């Protein structure tokens, strides 16, 4: 066990502040590596020390592994916390930490390899008995109908040699299959010189549900699930815990599968196993595992009372988990809104600039993770998230109402934000009913013009 005394934070924005918060509570000093553009940020002010890694562009600062290692060593740090995004799942950084004698506050390099690419991750899932989207390769037309029996309809035909959705065909019933298959195989042959196609179940109504994993490599715990189905172009917008209207057996199945997966790969740290829940079939499929703290971790913290960053640090220090599965008892409901500096009336164009006012009301049950203060700069170089509002309530309805109050009362001036989008979602009957799927937001957006 190696207690961390001085932690290098290789990140920025709200997550840097979030990590500093827990480090301060644990009596750990912090050094924040910042780009020039972030040298005046709240994180830089709150850290024990801030060092400039390089100029504003991420590739010249936040993404430079050597610079990060050098900065951590040169400032006397004994550990590196990578936050999320940037280098957080970079195997090379984790390995460089080992070489340099630094603790990487994250999983082992081997863990990162195991979850690093989709195909490897899927193979591990199958080996662990975790369901994946049913499908398979077809080389001859006669095999296809047999496979289609298993996969079900609708299904997708993809060229094995293809990618990026090119030449994908949706088939809704068995009658249409032979003709579509012939066509797809001919096209694949013509385009890639390889006629093999892949048949995969097409999920019409899917929900994005993920399970929080906490593991010291021996004890593997889950802290319940989060529903992140409200997405725009695969970007999560609103998250909540627990997942509303999820049948108990499905919920338990997800959590068990996530633990099974983590145990199978010998995962050691915080992580999240993401699933696609097939609403019509009451089934779920493994999507991927994120081997880092996630943006939406606070909704889990809100219902469990855990400090996930503290748990992550303790695991990195080599402490065995004292927490037990029974001691994790979720209570109430929590919802998170990602406030982004973007203009929803101009196709969500990012709106960098200087914030003139940033005040969030001290509402009971509300937590705001932000790096915004009056005068703070939102640089154009990074993502546009400026604050995460997390509302907790005894019930889902109470949590939503609290969030609406928070949105009404908060003052964030000087930049345009997506606050009206959140208000529209939270007042929308379909969302309030609970359990929307990943198509939901795309369907809501066209109606926004009338309301906002």
């Amino acid at each position, binding site marked *: 066990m190696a207690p961390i005394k001085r932690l290098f934070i290789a990140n920025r924005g709200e997550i840097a502040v979030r990590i500093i918060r827990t480090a301060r509570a644990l009596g750990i000093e912090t050094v924040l590596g910042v780009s*020039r*553009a972030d*040298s*005046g*940020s709240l994180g*830089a*002010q709150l850290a024990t020390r*801030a*060092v*400039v*890694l*390089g*100029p504003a562009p991420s590739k010249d*600062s936040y993404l430079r*592994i*050597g*610079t990060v*290692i*050098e*900065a951590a060593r*040169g*400032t006397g740090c004994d550990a590196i916390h990578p936050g999320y995004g940037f280098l957080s799942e970079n195997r090379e950084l984790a390995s*460089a930490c080992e070489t340099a004698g630094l603790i990487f506050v994250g999983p082992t390099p081997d863990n990162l390899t195991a979850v690093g690419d989709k195909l490897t991750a899927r193979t591990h899932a199958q080996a662990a008995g975790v369901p994946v989207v049913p499908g398979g390769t077809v080389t001859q037309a006669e095999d296809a109908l047999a496979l289609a029996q298993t996969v079900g309809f609708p299904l997708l035909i993809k060229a094995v040699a293809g990618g990026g959705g090119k030449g994908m065909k949706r088939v809704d019933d068995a009658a249409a299959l032979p003709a579509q298959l012939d066509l797809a195989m001919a096209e694949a042959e013509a385009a890639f010189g390889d006629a093999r196609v892949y048949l995969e179940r097409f999920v019409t109504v899917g929900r994005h549900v993920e399970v929080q994993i906490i593991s010291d490599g021996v004890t593997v715990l889950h802290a319940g699930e989060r529903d992140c189905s409200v997405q725009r172009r695969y970007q999560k917008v609103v998250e909540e815990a627990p997942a509303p209207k999820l049948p108990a057996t499905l919920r338990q199945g997800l959590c068990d599968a996530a633990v099974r997966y983590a145990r199978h790969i010998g995962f050691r740290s915080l992580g999240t196993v993401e699933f696609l829940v097939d609403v019509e079939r009451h089934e779920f499929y493994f999507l991927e595992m994120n081997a880092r703290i996630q943006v939406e971790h606070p909704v889990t913290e809100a219902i469990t009372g855990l400090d996930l960053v503290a748990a992550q640090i303790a695991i990195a220090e080599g402490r065995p988990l004292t927490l037990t599965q029974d001691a994790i008892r979720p209570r109430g409901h929590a919802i998170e809104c990602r406030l982004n500096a973007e203009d929803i009336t101009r196709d969500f164009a990012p709106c960098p600039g*200087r914030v003139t006012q940033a005040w969030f009301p001290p509402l009971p049950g509300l937590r705001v993770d932000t790096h915004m203060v009056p*005068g703070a*700069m939102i640089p154009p170089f990074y993502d546009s998230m400026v604050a995460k509002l997390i509302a907790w309530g005894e019930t889902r309805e109470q949590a939503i109402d609290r969030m609406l109050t928070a949105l009404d009362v908060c003052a964030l001036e000087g930049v345009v934000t997506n606050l009206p989008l959140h208000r529209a979602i939270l007042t929308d009957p379909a969302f309030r009913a609970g359990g929307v799927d990943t198509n939901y937001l795309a369907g809501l957006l066209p109606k926004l013009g009338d309301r906002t």
Partner: protein
Amino acid sequence: MAELTRTDIEDILKLIDGSDFDHLKLEMGELKLELRRRGSAPAMTAPPVPAPAPVSAPVTVAAPVTASGGGAEIPAPLLGTFWHAPRPGAEPFVKPGDVVTAETVVGIIEVMKLMNSIPAGIAGTVLEVVAPNGELVEHGQTLIRIQPA
């Protein structure tokens, strides 16, 4: 927490531009702003205004700026360990009084065993080697000061 925004600085510049003054020196806590009308100063001409990184943090700027003591400050182009000499015990690359060209190597910055030679970037006479030997320099931190030729 006094902080000037980019707009503020531009406003000040506009005012100075429209005035008869040749020189403005403003010191507010961490911030030192010195403006000299082109042609009036004995030293090098100042760039219009450095990039508007927030000025409150204890961070020096990267682009060469006029120092109060005169001379140009050569900033670290990257973060790493600064070495005065090519190897321990060897003579330093430069010392005060040395005459350098823009290409003269004035030090090495080591990042992960990779040695990066740092050229002076400007011709002149070395006034001071500011950054200590063998210690971490941040991006933009002053390495040495040079009196431009």
